[in-house]
């Protein structure tokens, strides 16, 4: 078996009496694009927080390239090459678009190289016209793009996107789907999304979360045909 890029073993997060993430075994290969779906409260965002070190798991392990990273600080994990776009836009609202991207690029590049990397990302995302705008004054969809730019400018190997298309127009959503395909040429990705249209457009392998556990995992077409998946989305009780 080849070494996985990211792996979790029996990963568990308990808040008081609630198990938001409950014994999740998960594995992502190098270069893979994986979609996570599941109803609200299924534990997807908590799962992301556990992987990126924003939360410390109650039990279980996270491995990155076979190396245990459980309990490391978020900045240590980020330095290993993990970038995340969070559910609520998480950017520097008081700084300009260019400054936002520069802070990300500066972590890996020095001097001119950082500036070049910023320009590349701005071209790629079509942010050039907004470069000197203060991010806090931009529309929600634009801020989503800025955050994508920030994540990519940091040059991660694994990109986590939590609901990248939330609050975007149809046109923006389509562009986001294209962009994800393009990112996936060079990076591994995990994408959490609700929009089934979007999932169909981008996904190959899908993992379905329900009540903190993995309900089913497999090829997108099979998973979306699975009656259990339809049931959890409609709120029926499932015998997993």
């Amino acid at each position, binding site marked *: 078996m080849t070494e996985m890029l990211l792996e979790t073993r029996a990963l568990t997060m308990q808040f008081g009496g609630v198990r938001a993430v409950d014994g999740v075994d998960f594995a992502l290969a190098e270069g893979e694009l994986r979609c996570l779906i599941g109803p609200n409260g299924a534990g997807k965002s908590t799962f992301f927080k556990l992987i990126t070190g924003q939360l410390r798991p109650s039990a279980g392990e996270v491995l990155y390239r076979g190396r245990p990273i459980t309990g490391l600080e*978020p*900045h240590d994990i*980020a*330095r290993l090459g993990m970038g995340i776009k969070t559910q609520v836009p998480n950017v520097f609202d*008081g700084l300009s678009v260019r400054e936002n991207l520069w*802070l990300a690029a*500066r972590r890996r590049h020095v001097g001119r190289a950082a500036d070049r990397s910023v320009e590349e990302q701005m071209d790629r995302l079509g942010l050039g016209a907004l470069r*000197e705008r*203060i991010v806090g*004054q931009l529309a929600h969809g634009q801020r989503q793009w800025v955050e994508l730019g920030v994540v990519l400018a940091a040059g991660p190997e694994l990109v986590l996107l939590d609901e990248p298309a939330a609050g975007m127009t149809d046109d923006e959503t389509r562009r986001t789907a294209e962009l994800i395909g393009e990112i996936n040429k060079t990076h591994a990705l995990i994408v959490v999304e609700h929009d089934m249209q979007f999932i169909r457009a981008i996904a190959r392998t899908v993992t379905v979360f329900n009540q903190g556990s993995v309900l089913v995992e497999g090829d997108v077409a099979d998973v979306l045909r699975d009656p259990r998946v339809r049931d959890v989305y409609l709120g029926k009780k499932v015998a997993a």
Partner: protein
Amino acid sequence: MIAQVSALLRGHAGTTALALVGLGLLFGLPLGLETYVLLQVTVYVTFAILALSLGFVLGFGGILCLGQSVFFGLGAYTYGIAVTDMGDSTIPVLLSVAVPSLFAAALGYFIFWGRISDVYVGVITLTVSLIFFSVVNSTAGPQYHIGAAAIGGYNGMPNIPGINLPFEPDDTLDPNGVFYLTMGSLLVCYFGLRWLLTTTFGRVVVAVRENERRVELLGYDARRYKLLALTLGAAIAGLAGCLFANWGSFVGPSVFSVVQSAQILIWVTVGGAGTLLGPVIGSILISWLTAVLGTQQTLNASLVLGFILLVFVLVVPGGIAAVARRARTAAARLGAFGAARRIGREAHPGARP
């Protein structure tokens, strides 16, 4: 007028103009002022340095340090004790910067590695200043001394030797020399901080203020940047403390007092957090006001300062700097000068912590 001046203060032309004004004051004031006025100006400039220290920590680092007087007081006492023991002032001046910095680094470790919220940081730092005040206040009596220097409790330490030329203990600075040193320190601190804010370190410090979580998710250790920002602020406050003890040849426990801490915060709040020039201007205005209040009996200074803080928090958030910025934006809208694009770029909202 305000609008034009504050527009000028941005950008390279502004930096040059400000540097020229600073140098003009540095060399001009000793020529134009009588000695006792110059002494008064010197203490205002000392306070401006102190205001700058909190202006950086609070306005750019976003660290709610309500006990900046601790570092000021530590600097003042360190200088007083060390120079009394050593005679020559060279090492004591360096110590007065080093001791508060080390103390800030130790305190910052507990605060930032514990990841406590802003409000907690405020309460802890304020409490530290309260306890320093009460401890130093009760060290009267001959048993409390460090070397030959008695700490003196509520009586303070009188007759502190003045600063001399490096390693020349007999060459003590005259009032003009003290002014050159103090004003020169202010200029170095001010332009040094402006430069620092253009470096990667400075930008990350500001980014931490804007969004600590995002900074960490990009791979920067936010705690370390906050610790360094607090430590740098403490170093500058310590320098101000040293200059203050030298200025009056005296230091008493009131340098640690809550009122002292509150004053520093009021300077910054009135001048405008999130700028460097604002706190400097705020400190000079408020110090002048306090001096005027001290000459009359009807209005208590604490009453007035408390009222000013209330008014600025409730009615003028962002302080004088924000008012100037709004005036400038309004002027730009009227087309008084056509730099509207630049203003959009520079009007950083969220500058308040």
